């Protein structure tokens, strides 16, 4: 399908009319969390976020940007490795390498002799890097949610199959549903509904969110990333609120099935096992992370690494931003001194980070 159809002004206008009618009938201020950073981007880039706020519906960004929720201790461990040990090739995604620390971000560090930092675009690139660097230890700083984990897991298995001895992984692999439970259980965010992530749900389906409707009676919908998708998701949540129901709807049926993608999940399960996970802003959340089954491939084991929190920026409000407790503008650093040119925290670095999105598109208003 042509994505332009899902972006056009007249489709947006038609859906907004329905949103208006529902908001009038519900007749109270609403808070809906969009879990995924790409939804935050859609809402703000299109100007719909500001328009909906004026109408009494506030969209709150959730913990759905992998760069943003990776704890400083993991970035610190990677930094320590590449600055202290010779002949390391540290590879990661561009945004991850630009996460600021009180020292420098990873791309600007001075690596130890023979060590380097490399930007990659796709997990399996590390296999070629490892094959091409026999004298080096290649370490992949692999972060991601269920969207990215299958391809990371495949890379891990491929490394095993081909007997690559010089490749290992520093992982921050996290699962999307557990922090949503943490947010609801803490009772501090007062949410009326959820927009569930599109890409993650292609893999896990809609079933893993059912507990939210069942146990917390909070409505929600899975949807895609075009303005029309976002509005369809919001409409489905509003209809549930109006009818006093709580379900997990799929407003993204062109990509998501309730059962997700079992083949991708098999790859994940074969390479990784569920463990407690550390999150920026949340601390440890039970059964929220994955670790490699093959402990020999875990760089923490191979190089006796430890979480290194000496890289933590205490003033940064990213932890509260990813929990939906504050909006980016409420962080004392937002805009001054923290900007995309001089970011102080990961949410101002990542293209999915809500601080960067608010900074760039904060004034955008839908007027079509």
């Amino acid at each position, binding site marked *: 399908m042509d994505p332009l159809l899902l972006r056009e002004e007249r489709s947006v206008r038609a859906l907004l009319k329905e949103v208006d009618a529902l908001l009038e009938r519900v007749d109270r201020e609403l808070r809906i969390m969009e879990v995924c950073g790409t939804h935050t981007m859609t809402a703000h880039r299109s*100007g719909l976020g500001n328009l909906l706020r004026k109408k009494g519906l506030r969209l709150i960004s959730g913990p759905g940007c992998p760069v943003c929720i990776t704890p400083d201790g993991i970035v610190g461990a990677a930094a320590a490795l590449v600055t202290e040990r010779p002949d390391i090739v540290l590879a990661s995604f561009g945004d991850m390498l630009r996460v600021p620390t009180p020292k420098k971000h990873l791309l600007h560090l001075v690596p130890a002799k023979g060590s380097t930092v490399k930007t990659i*675009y796709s997990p399996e690139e590390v296999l070629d890097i490892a094959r091409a660097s026999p004298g080096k230890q290649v370490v992949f700083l692999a972060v991601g949610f269920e969207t*990215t984990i299958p391809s990371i897991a495949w890379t891990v298995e491929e490394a095993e199959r081909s007997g690559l001895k010089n490749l290992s992984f520093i992982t921050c692999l996290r699962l999307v549903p557990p922090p949503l439970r943490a947010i609801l259980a803490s009772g501090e965010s007062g949410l009326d509904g959820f927009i569930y992530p599109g890409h993650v749900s292609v893999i896990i389906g809609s079933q893993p969110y059912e507990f939210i409707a069942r146990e917390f009676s909070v409505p929600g919908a899975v949807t895609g990333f075009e303005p029309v998708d976002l509005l369809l998701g919001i409409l489905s949540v509003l209809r549930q609120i109006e009818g006093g129901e709580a379900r997990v709807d799929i407003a993204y049926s062109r990509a998501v099935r309730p059962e997700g993608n079992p083949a991708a999940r098999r790859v994940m399960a074969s390479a990784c096992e569920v463990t407690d996970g550390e999150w920026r802003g949340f601390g440890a959340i039970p059964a929220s992370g994955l670790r490699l089954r093959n402990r020999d491939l875990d760089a923490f084991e191979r190089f006796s690494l430890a979480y290194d929190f000496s890289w933590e920026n205490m003033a940064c409000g990213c932890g509260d931003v990813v929990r939906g407790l504050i909006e980016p503008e409420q962080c004392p650093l937002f805009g001054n001194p923290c900007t995309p040119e001089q970011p102080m925290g990961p949410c101002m670095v990542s293209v999915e980070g809500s601080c960067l999105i608010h900074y760039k598109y904060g004034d955008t208003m839908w007027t079509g």
Partner: protein
Amino acid sequence: MDRISLSLGSGGKLMREFLRTLILRHLGNPCLDGLADSAHLEIRGRVGFTTDSFVIQPIFFPGGDIGRLAVAGTVNDLVVSGIKPLYLSLSLILEEGFPVSDLKKVLSSVREAAAEAGVMVVTGDTKVVRRGEADGLYINTAGVGQVVAEPGGIEGGDVIILTGSVGDHSVAVMVARREFEFEGEMESDCRPLHGLLPLWQMGVKWMRDITRGGLATILCECAEGGDVPVFVEEARVPLSAPVRAISEILGLDPLYLASEGKAVVIAPRDRAEGIVDFLRSLPAGKSSAVIGRIGGHERKGEVVLKSISGGLRLLEPLTGELLPRIC
């Protein structure tokens, strides 16, 4: 000689042979043939002068190479400044070991692009640096020409015209680098824009070619430079299907991608139709379109973009580097 050697740089017999067999064979003309230290030129009236350096990787990409780019880049800087390009200089910085066959290809491209644009290479220089001290081949070109128009005088109500689709160069180079394992036919739009010179006689007030930083950055410079409000509509910006698709996949904004053969043109509203008709008659201007206007809001020095979905937002110049999203 198969590969460029360091001894070429000593300026002796080898260099003379290099100049005769390679440079003059490809680029020879009455002005260059004497191999004098400087060129004597005939130019009437006010003279325009510019320079640019080219360091692209890969040196060869679909739709062009560093040689074509080096001619087009400098010719285009002149054309958009109201200058009819006449003469170019060509300086080569070669890495020891660079294949002579590749250099021949680059020089052929220089010759073709110069002939296309109606300019002569009249002076030049060659230096060789040790292996590892340069990345194959760097080129600097300078260009001079005759001033035919004095750009300026942008005012409220003027329209903003784009001479064709944007982002083709960026995407072609990305595909050629095999950074993303995309396969397909995608050509750079790299070309000299001498064909736009008649626009200066058609009422055009301001022109800029779109290179690094993309359309968005040029529009910001226009707004800031003229201290005027600029309004553009995303839906009117022409994009080729591959640029649209690859931008979607990688999460890149095509408004920030580079072109090497497109320009933004500003003209009075009543001239717009004639200009677009003229542009559409050119090979590089088939998708030319009016994309916005001066005015439309109160924020002087700033660009407001109306997105395809109907949102109004401020358009910022490119900051940092373009990074694809990771999920």
